[in-house]
């Protein structure tokens, strides 16, 4: 058996015979993998044996779902491919939620699963599951390797597919005998995928048409999505908006793509977006969508969405274009390249009237909450957190009201600063994603703003944070409810709170039992001090804020309503 070798060997002129498991490890190293998240099991033992002395950091979550979200958080924080490993059967099925989460938000992951021996496949062997069958709809691509000679190439292709074009998770299913079999480890060669083409540069004619439309537009709005972050195009977006003088709203996943402290920022649009963003989109004569996909939570009722506007859509995925709304000027390609070309072709316009109108809306309807009472308002906790971290922390979240408040009340200025499951809305994402992000950015302040129910789903990963001494912070906005569900029950089901409250553990004690620091806060006047203490901690720390139980997220575009038909604006005005 060959000794453990590193990527250097693959360039050696002599053909090197290696075991499949060694080829996996060496190819991962060759692909620049520094960290892997994963869990053991019978059919991945050959691989783990080779990982034992590989130059790769290995993080063991407490559950494969957690491992997959960690790889996802790592990928979102860096733009690099996150790697997760699991065993066959239950190990692989535990990845499904994590893969679907990454798929919906276009996050580059490579998942490696063990599989039963090739001669057992199809026989209902112990821990056999049809992993490629189960994961096909939740991956960008997946393959099972049935010949050890395909292994290195398949892994290289997986990294290429995961990270290029519209990124996404790719799963490689590797039967255990393929990990043991030996073959020559071929050096990397040109990836040959005849059915996979990535278009980077936008069509010059389309760009010229877009520029012409922008130059004559009186009420333009840029609507930027997660694609801007994925393509590292934030600088290009800023230069573009600056040069052409355009207001910019972002989607939930686009938060951080445009500095929210800039005056032309309209913050987030959509169901719980700002009134000024939603009004601006509805009144616009030109909507410039960049790396966004017109999801229903963004558009509200499709028929009335931006109905006065011509629509330009810049996206790398041709299938996103005209999927939900009719697009007048599509530009297919990478946002970074297209924005930079487009910037050259646009001209500055004053648009005083339009910016004045927007300023009026901004003044009239800022995000607000009623802070007169004695209770701790969740929005207040986030505002304080933003103040104390100077808006520079990396924020992960669960799913629910707290997630929306984290989007509304923290001010994001950098891409990759906000890490949240937008498309799938996966409760339990926050803690493991924060762990992955902290591993990616050891010096960053990483904070999981979480809800009590979301946190309950994956809280076992606190143990992982403690084991690897990761100084993540958890701000639990504990309302003792599945708050977002309760809000819908309040508004649409006559306040019948069916099954939406949980009996929670004492979270501070629980953190303590895990070996983290736990703090409990139930008075408003203690909030700032608790946050300061939390931020000063050098290890993992959880603060359980007992917040107002029946607070609602406003404004809200109820399902089926038009984007400008927001509920809660009267509440805003009464608070003014």
């Amino acid at each position, binding site marked *: 058996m060959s000794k453990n070798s590193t990527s250097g060997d693959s360039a050696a002129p002599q053909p090197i015979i290696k075991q499949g498991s060694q080829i996996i490890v060496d190819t991962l190293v060759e692909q620049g993998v520094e960290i892997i998240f994963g869990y053991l099991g019978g059919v991945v033992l050959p691989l783990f044996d080779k990982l034992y002395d590989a130059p790769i950091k290995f993080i063991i979550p407490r559950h494969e779902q957690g491992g997959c979200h960690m790889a996802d958080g790592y990928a979102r924080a860096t733009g690099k491919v996150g790697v997760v490993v699991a065993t066959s059967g239950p190990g692989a099925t535990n990845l499904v939620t994590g893969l679907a989460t990454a798929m919906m938000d276009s996050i580059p992951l490579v998942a490696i699963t063990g599989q039963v021996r090739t001669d057992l496949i199809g026989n209902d062997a112990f821990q056999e599951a049809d992993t490629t069958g189960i994961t096909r709809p939740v991956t960008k691509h997946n393959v099972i390797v049935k010949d050890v000679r395909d292994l290195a190439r398949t892994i290289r292709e997986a990294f290429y597919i995961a990270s290029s074009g519209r990124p996404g998770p790719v799963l490689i299913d590797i039967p255990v005998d393929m990990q043991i079999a030996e073959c020559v480890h071929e050096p990397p060669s040109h990836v040959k995928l005849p*059915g996979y083409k990535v278009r980077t540069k936008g069509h010059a004619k389309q760009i010229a048409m877009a520029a012409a439309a922008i130059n004559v537009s009186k009420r333009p709005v840029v609507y930027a999505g997660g694609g801007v972050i994925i393509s590292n195009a934030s600088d290009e977006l800023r230069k573009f908006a600056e040069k052409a003088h355009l207001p910019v709203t972002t989607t939930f996943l686009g938060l951080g793509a445009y500095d929210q402290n800039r005056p032309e920022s309209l913050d987030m649009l959509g169901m719980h977006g700002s009134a000024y963003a939603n009004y601006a989109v509805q009144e616009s004569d030109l909507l410039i969508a960049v790396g966004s996909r017109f999801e229903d939570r963004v558009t509200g009722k499709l028929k009335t969405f931006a109905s006065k506007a011509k629509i330009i859509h810049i996206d790398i995925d041709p299938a996103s274009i005209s999927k939900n709304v009719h697009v007048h000027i599509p530009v297919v390609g990478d946002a970074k390249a297209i924005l930079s070309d487009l910037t050259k072709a646009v001209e500055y316009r004053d648009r005083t009237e339009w910016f004045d109108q927007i300023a009026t809306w901004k003044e009239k309807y800022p995000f607000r909450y009623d802070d007169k009472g004695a209770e701790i308002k969740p929005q207040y906790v986030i505002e304080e957190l933003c103040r104390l971290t100077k808006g520079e922390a990396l924020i992960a979240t669960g799913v629910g009201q707290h997630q929306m408040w984290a989007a509304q009340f923290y001010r994001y200025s950098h891409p990759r600063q906000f890490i949240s499951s937008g498309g799938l809305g996966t409760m339990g994402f926050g803690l493991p994603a924060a762990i992955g992000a902290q591993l990616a950015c050891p010096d960053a302040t990483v904070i999981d703003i979480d809800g009590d129910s979301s946190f309950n789903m994956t809280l076992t990963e606190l143990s992982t944070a403690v084991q690897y001494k990761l100084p993540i912070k958890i701000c639990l906005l504990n309302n003792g409810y599945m708050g977002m569900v309760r809000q819908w029950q309040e508004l649409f089901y006559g306040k019948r709170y069916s099954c939406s409250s949980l009996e929670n553990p004492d979270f501070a004690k629980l953190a303590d039992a895990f070996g983290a620091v736990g703090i409990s806060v139930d008075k408003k006047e203690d909030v700032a001090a608790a946050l300061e203490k939390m931020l000063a901690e050098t290890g993992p720390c959880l603060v359980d804020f007992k917040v107002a139980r029946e607070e609602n997220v406003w404004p809200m575009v109820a399902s089926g309503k038009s984007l400008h038909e927001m509920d809660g604006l009267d509440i805003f005005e009464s608070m003014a």
Partner: protein
Amino acid sequence: MKHIISALVQNKPGVLAHVAGMFAARAFNIDSLAVGRTEDPELSRMTIVVIGDDRVVEQVRKQLAKIIPVVKVQDFAGKDVVAHDLLLLSVAATPEKRPEIVAVVEMFGAKVVDIGPKSVMVEICGPETKIEAFIDACRPYGIKDVVRTGTVAMGRQANIKVKIEK
């Protein structure tokens, strides 16, 4: 409206499942699906008949193209194509009725491919309208079984050709 979509796919395990799964997941309506080898051993061709308006069919085309082992997708709508189905049909035919049935078969340019004591098997190939008309014509005699391939199609001018890098 029916559209004929032709897709060249790599000959890899799982491609059919992927295509079928995508149709199901996105609630697209498949009318028929025919898969066969091409002159290139690394490629197969799928001919898919889908029902939907132009928007739906545009999505079908784009979503198909997104599948990694799908190499090329073409929508034949508005193109000059030859689109044929193959049908095997078994029709009840006592020796007395046979001449009458054979006359119908000949009228349609179909072919008797098997004769049993109580039935004959007929093969017919052609556009869907012709196939449907033939089935209607056989119905009064008593149809025992029908097997259809689904449509295959080829553009009259130039069908899509892709040379795969070797």
